[in-house]
């Protein structure tokens, strides 16, 4: 009853925070960005067989200024790391990070001098998707987990404030 019944159920009453979260998770645009072999599985998740478009994510943005989600798909070498951080810094808030694959999560099989031992040493990772490489279904599951996480965020009362180390250049 109340105003909803008065308007013949043409309006939906909710709170602003839920609405903001819903809007954010329903059109979360990933950065078109791949580091290694995991990127191929990410590409497979985009195309029609797995169809990431079902979740409002079909537009991979070439510019970090248009992107909300960075999928770190693959091995981050130490030489590459300053570039990755610089791209992350250029993304507008709110922004999220998925570490895709064993290498992005922990360094994977590359326990050596040249590879960053987990991108979470330098970026605030929201969801980890392990696997070498993870199948597209695993990435989709990780993305849905991220959506669930976004829906729980206090986007207005307690917005995310990120402080990251500024990459030297």
């Amino acid at each position: 009853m109340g105003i909803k019944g008065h308007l013949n159920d043409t309006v939906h009453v909710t709170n602003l925070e839920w609405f903001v979260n819903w809007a954010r998770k329903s059109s979360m645009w990933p950065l078109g960005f791949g580091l290694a072999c995991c990127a191929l599985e990410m590409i497979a998740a985009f195309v029609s067989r797995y169809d990431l478009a079902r979740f409002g994510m079909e537009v991979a943005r070439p510019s970090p200024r248009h992107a909300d989600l960075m999928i770190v798909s693959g091995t981050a070498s130490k030489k590459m790391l300053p570039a990755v951080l610089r791209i992350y810094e250029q993304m507008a808030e709110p922004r999220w990070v998925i570490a895709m694959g064993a290498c992005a999560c922990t360094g994977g099989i590359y326990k050596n001098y040249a590879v960053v031992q987990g991108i979470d040493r330098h970026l605030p990772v929201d969801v980890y998707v392990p696997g070498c490489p993870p199948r597209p279904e695993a990435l989709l599951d990780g993305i849905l987990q991220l959506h669930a996480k976004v829906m729980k965020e206090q986007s207005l009362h307690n917005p995310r404030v990120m402080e990251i180390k500024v990459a030297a250049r």
Partner: protein
Amino acid sequence: MKQEEIKDKLLSKFGSDMILASVDFRGQISVTVLREKILEICRYLKEDPDLAFNFLSFVAGVDWYPKTPRFEVVYQIQSLKHNHRFRVKAMLEESGDNLASIDSVVPLWPTANWHERETAEMFGITFNNHPDPRKLLLPDGWTVHPLRKDFSLYGTKEDTPDLPA
């Protein structure tokens, strides 16, 4: 030309003072030459009409630690004109703080540019008169040489930091 003929031709031209040794492994002959004469010998290999080694397949380094001399530089060359291949090596040694050094062959084969840069940073070998002696693959600030046998695979925070300081 057969491998044996190439070796004999080199020996008759330069003598055993400059062609120090040769090894025949499964029909592939590699010769070890005097370090100081590498450019001269390579120039002959490239410009002699019967040899005409106009293509450099790769330049690589080898660390024979703890033997002396410690380092070896390998040149694999090919003649597209005559369709024959050959391998030339030179032994190098460090002295104190001075890195091992050898003349660059970029004037003969421009391909050598990046191959020598990689060998230089990975083994700590200086290529004299290299036109572009920057690092190729490693981050600019690093001073270590990861393909040396005495380098720890994991590196250290000081030597191989995640980010430039």
